[in-house]
């Protein structure tokens, strides 16, 4: 049971395809997740907006990390925030149990998990100070020293080779044999030129150009002409064979432990794949990790000619500097009050459902009105959650809430009502009141005032609404002279005129529209097809077009929905699609 709004991304808005179509390109989101670009006059969603990172912060210490430091910190908090290796909650710092001479608890400090009581004593980590744990850990980490010394010796080894080759480049002229025999001369020459051009070291060129050269030499068959530099074999300082890593006796034990799971066995994959690649596989080998940083995002309109900011967060607070969300532009639509039509009276009506002529619609509408007034037992309230039954007719209420400070005119239609697909055959949707208005959003006390002077003027709206619903046809049912005049006016003048809002009462019922403050409720009848099988999802799309009064600043050129009625340019249409999910058939 949900209503989601369509976002057609960069396509111009078009009728959405039935839910069953795999080529249905637009995506559906809840209204509160959608954005709205005023420049493009279009809905945008999280999938299509352009995202930029506005700021980085640590979710544990809430420190705003300057973006310059983020890379050096490897996207993790560089202060004292660590996550527990077993339960991933953030570790806290605890002083040692034995109080020092001052009576205060003091060093050594350990990290302890408040969730699972894991302690850094298990991996032998303790610290002198309770602050800057990450820095202390970096200093403590002996592993990096070994790696660094190994790297330094390797660098020394290779540097001797580079310096040897660069020293010989005085013979820059291609004295053929020597230069071809020793590609390093050429390479180093290239390197030197590149260094001159770039004003920095380009060590990588050596390896690259050597790699490029090689295939060409073999192809030309002049292999004997080329020779390689006499590069001595590099002997690693720490040999893994010497360390006994090749065939350590405890590997047998490790193999035995591989079958065990839990605290003594192999760590879960989820815990391992975020860690560095050489970490141990056992649960006990996993070390606390620094907590990954979180971001605040700036969101922009994806249109290449627009790129306007839709969301700009404030780094200091939760407020947004710019917030263009669809909830401020599109009416909120909710569905509720499900009722099942009891079969007794509708048997005659059911077979002729296929052709829903306006006459038929009007007849049914009248009947529905009578139903509400007279016989109450024709419909039965049902829970929204209970499964639907095939072959039954349900009536729902659709509530639309206006977010604008002007009244809006709504038109509900079913897109692709002519095409029939398998999913659409599962239900038939009847919209008894496709046209109605929603009152403007006002402050709460403004509604109260209207409520009070509500009275004998009720028929005003009743009459005018009749004019709305029979758009194009002559006004037939006017309740009084005054109502008739309004009914004959164009609907826009009623909609926009300041006087009309006065006539719109706090709560009046007009031809199946139930109004309360800025919310209008209309009925929606759903006939579940008898062919619908168990488990079928009942989903359908609705097209919603609303006419609103736009600000004068908006030029008529950038309106995608043309204003209806040539001279009233301050009225604009906006069309969007929603998908109603009613749940599954029992």
């Amino acid at each position: 049971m949900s209503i989601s709004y369509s976002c057609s991304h960069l396509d111009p808005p078009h009728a959405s395809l039935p839910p069953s179509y795999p080529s249905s390109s637009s995506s559906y989101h809840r209204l509160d997740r959608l954005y709205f670009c005023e420049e493009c006059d279009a809905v945008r969603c999280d999938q299509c907006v352009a995202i930029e990172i506005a700021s980085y912060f640590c979710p544990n210490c809430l420190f705003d990390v300057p973006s310059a430091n983020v890379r050096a910190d490897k996207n993790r908090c560089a202060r004292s925030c660590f996550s527990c290796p077993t339960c991933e909650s953030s570790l806290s710092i605890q002083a040692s149990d034995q109080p020092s001479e001052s009576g205060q608890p003091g060093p050594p400090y350990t990290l302890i998990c408040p969730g699972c009581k894991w302690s850094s004593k298990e991996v032998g980590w303790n610290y002198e100070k309770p602050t800057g744990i990450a820095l202390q850990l970096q200093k403590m980490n002996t592993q990096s020293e070994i790696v660094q010394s190994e790297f330094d010796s390797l660098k020394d080894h290779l540097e001797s080779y580079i310096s040897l080759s660069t020293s010989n480049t005085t013979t820059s002229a291609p004295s053929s044999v020597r230069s071809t025999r020793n590609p390093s001369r050429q390479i180093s020459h290239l390197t030197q030129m590149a260094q001159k051009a770039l004003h920095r070291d380009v060590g990588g060129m050596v390896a690259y150009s050597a790699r490029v050269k090689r295939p060409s030499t073999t192809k030309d068959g002049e292999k004997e002409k080329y020779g390689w530099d006499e590069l001595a074999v590099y002997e690693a300082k720490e040999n893994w064979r010497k360390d006994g890593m090749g065939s350590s006796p405890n590997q047998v034990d490790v193999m035995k432990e591989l079958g065990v799971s839990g605290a003594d066995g192999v760590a879960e994959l989820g815990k391992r794949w975020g860690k560095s690649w050489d970490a141990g596989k056992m649960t006990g080998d996993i070390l606390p990790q620094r907590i990954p940083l979180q971001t605040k995002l700036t969101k922009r309109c994806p249109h290449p000619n627009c790129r306007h900011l839709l969301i700009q967060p404030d780094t200091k607070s939760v407020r947004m500097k710019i917030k263009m969300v669809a909830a401020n532009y599109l009416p909120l639509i909710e569905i509720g009050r499900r009722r099942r039509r009891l079969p007794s009276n509708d048997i005659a009506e059911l077979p002729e459902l296929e052709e829903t002529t306006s006459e038929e619609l009007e007849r049914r509408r009248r009947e529905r009105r009578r139903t509400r007034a007279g016989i109450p037992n024709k419909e039965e309230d049902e829970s929204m959650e209970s499964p639907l039954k095939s072959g039954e007719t349900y009536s729902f209420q659709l509530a639309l809430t206006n977010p604008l400070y002007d009244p809006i005119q709504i038109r509900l239609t079913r897109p692709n009502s002519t095409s029939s697909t398998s999913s659409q055959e599962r239900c038939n949707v009847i919209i008894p009141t496709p046209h109605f208005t929603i009152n403007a959003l006002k402050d709460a006390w403004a509604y109260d005032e209207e409520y009070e002077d509500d009275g004998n003027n009720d028929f005003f709206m009743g009459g005018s609404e009749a004019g709305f619903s029979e758009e194009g046809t002559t006004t037939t049912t006017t309740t009084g002279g005054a109502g008739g005049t309004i009914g004959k006016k164009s609907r826009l003048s009623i909609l926009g005129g300041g006087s009309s809002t006065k006539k719109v009462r706090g709560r009046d019922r007009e031809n199946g529209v139930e109004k309360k403050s800025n919310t209008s409720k209309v009925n929606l009848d759903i006939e579940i097809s008898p062919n619908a099988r168990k488990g079928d999802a009942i989903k359908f799309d609705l097209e919603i077009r609303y006419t609103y009064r736009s600000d004068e600043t908006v030029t008529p050129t950038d309106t995608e929905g043309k204003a209806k009625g040539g001279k009233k340019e301050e009225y604009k249409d906006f069309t969007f699609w929603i998908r109603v999910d009613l749940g599954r058939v029992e």
Partner: protein
Amino acid sequence: MGAFDPIITYEKGTYIETDTGNKVSRKATIIGATNIILGGKSIIQTGSILRGDLRRSTAGQHVVITMGRYCLIGEGSIVRPPGKMYKGSFTFYPLRISDFVHIGPNCIVEAASIGSGVEIGKNCIIGKFVIIKDLAVILPDTVLPEGTVVPSMSIWSGNPGKLIDTLPETYQETMEAKCKSYYQRFRAA
């Protein structure tokens, strides 16, 4: 927002309504009421326990629990201030709850502070000295260990609780409307 939400009724006389619009169940256990401040239009439901008596041991007036406007303490929830050993003696620290905070039924809350627009689902345990910043959602059955920090615009779930998602930018309006609507729908039968 919430056009079809049903009215939540209680038996007449089971709740006391204060001048500022707070609705407090007669069956809620409120100890040390002088140390508890309610901001107004807040609801304290049946069976909940508020421990205002757990105050700092030193002499003088200490506010123990502060609550903002449009808050809800669900049925059977326990709200008590956090305490710990400090300089050799056990001390309680005040618990501050901002506006628009919904705490679901059967929760245990020992947080240090809860920001505005926070929703805590049912059966949650919020550990001692937890800090929940403005606009956050703690899904039902979550356990937040001691001292957890919940940043703004985040959704937490699990035992122990983890950050699982972020909230949409509209959440502030959504939550405020929800809290106001709940207060208006909560009335005597």
